[in-house]
């Protein structure tokens, strides 16, 4: 199969956000059957299904508007590392429940206002997907906030661990609010969201939860980005290799 990319600008924009969700879903899926309690395994299953589900909808729609002869799954399975455009935050590895929750929390606090804003998209399909996703994200944020507070204000060990996870992941947070030419094009045409306007909402929900959790907002101002242009960390490649292996080993088959 030749290189799989989208040509249409809207499709490319949709794929970005689909990428965020498929990569996060895949990361969450790694944790299934490994949760601290049975109930939490069920909770993580639901989170995973939501992210994979919204990714599936977005990829399918992107493939449709792009008009090329691709399916949503082709976009998932036959694009390589440099063509994936997810945020760096979602591809980071988690070594345990601390990283998992910290990442969910930082991302949920962004995704909820993002979906809410995208619900007003001129594109009916996108708006519909966003409205449903916003409801899911509201619950996700509730779940991750609940754990942030318990881990932050739990034992000295849990406090240290969750603070360390927040500190470690903090450098990937500004990227969520960066915009590029494609974002601006989508905002101008009323299809997309200016994520830079979401920062305030994000900061206030993050600050409120950190405070209740007796945690400190990291002081380190170093920030890194590049995911939207395919400049990833080294964690994405191995994940894609595993995720795409079956399709790539026998391309063109039905499963």
């Amino acid at each position, binding site marked *: 199969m030749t290189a799989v990319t989208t040509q249409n600008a809207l499709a490319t924009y949709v794929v970005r956000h689909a990428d965020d969700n498929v990569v996060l879903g895949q990361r969450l899926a790694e944790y*299934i059957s*490994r949760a601290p309690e049975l109930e939490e395994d069920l909770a993580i299953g639901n989170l995973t*299904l939501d992210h994979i589900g919204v990714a599936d909808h977005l990829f399918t729609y992107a493939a449709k508007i792009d008009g090329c002869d691709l399916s949503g799954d082709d976009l*998932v399975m036959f694009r390589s590392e440099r063509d994936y455009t997810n945020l760096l935050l979602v591809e980071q590895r988690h070594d345990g*429940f601390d990283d998992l929750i910290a990442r969910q929390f930082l991302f949920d606090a962004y995704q909820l206002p993002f979906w809410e804003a995208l619900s007003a998209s001129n594109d009916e399909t996108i708006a519909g997907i966003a409205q449903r996703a916003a409801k899911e994200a509201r619950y996700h944020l509730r779940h991750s906030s609940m754990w942030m507070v318990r881990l932050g*204000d*739990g034992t000295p*060990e*849990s406090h240290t661990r969750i603070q360390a996870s927040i500190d470690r992941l903090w450098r990937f947070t500004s990227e969520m609010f960066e915009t590029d030419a494609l974002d601006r094009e989508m905002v101008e045409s009323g299809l997309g969201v200016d994520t830079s306007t979401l920062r305030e909402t994000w900061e206030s929900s993050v600050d409120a939860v950190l405070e209740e959790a007796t945690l400190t907002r990291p002081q380190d101002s170093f920030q890194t980005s590049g995911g939207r242009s395919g400049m990833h960390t080294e964690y994405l490649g191995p994940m894609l290799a595993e995720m795409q*292996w079956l399709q790539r080993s026998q391309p063109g088959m039905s499963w």
Partner: protein
Amino acid sequence: MDASTEFENGQAKFDAIIAADEKIEPRDWMPDGYRKTVIRQMAQHAHSEVIGMQPEANWILRAPTLLRKAILIAKVQDEAGHGLYLYSATETLGVSRDELVGLLHEGKQKYSSIFNYPALSWADMGAIGWLVDGAAIVNQIVLQGTSYGPYSRAMVKICKEESFHARQGYSIMMALAEGSDEQKAMCQDALNRWWWPALMMFGPHDSESAHTAESMAWKIKRKTNDELRQMFIDQTVPQAHYLGMTIPDPDLVFDEETGHWTIGEIDWDEFWATIKGDGRLNRERITHKVKAWDEGRWVRDAATAYAAKQKMKPDKSA
């Protein structure tokens, strides 16, 4: 009332409830042996559901499409739910889930040997759903009629959820059976490897099964191992043929007289070896579980500590 009259009254009432095909409920008097058997069976059933997440979780990350991935996640998650319902039913008899999980981790309580076989290809996701869940469903449908109320109710709930498990498995097999030669070969290979272990899920022959008679009398079990196995064989052989696959049993024949399929002899040495802990993955399955449990301790401790702190706060009315 002295102890012996209480025992006699209790026994008489218990017998009457069983005879009337009604359910025994948690606070009822019940014979010690009944309590022990029900606890043991429910706990092992619960352990099996939870350990059973592992072979399929092994393929979630490699699922070929997002839809298949979502289906598999939902299915594995359901198994966690089944574990939850069954532990919950077991706890009605005064034993805590923590104790049961501890016994599992220490190897003092077992889970179904089927999960000690490895899932080696994508087709195994088909074979497991179709054959392993299929076998479990045959058993669980009958168990809805079990005499212990909470167990029976858990089975009703589980059966409702299970129906898609076998179907999604068969649908994977159908896609492979209609696919390339390589896919067909995967499909046949998975059937070859899962067929006999699935039949072993029903346990030893009735003649070898020490507790069957007692469990049947108490109506904990409603059909014998061999009866259930035969039901499964009869429903599954035509399904394999529909796929164009061959059942890996040269002795398999259809008995026109009885209307049943008869199979060759099961490898009972392998069966008992797996139960005794010498299955392919016995150690790995428990190690995985214990590792997750140990790694989660700090999280559970944090949540417990937080809850305790909240209780201490005077202004919290909740």
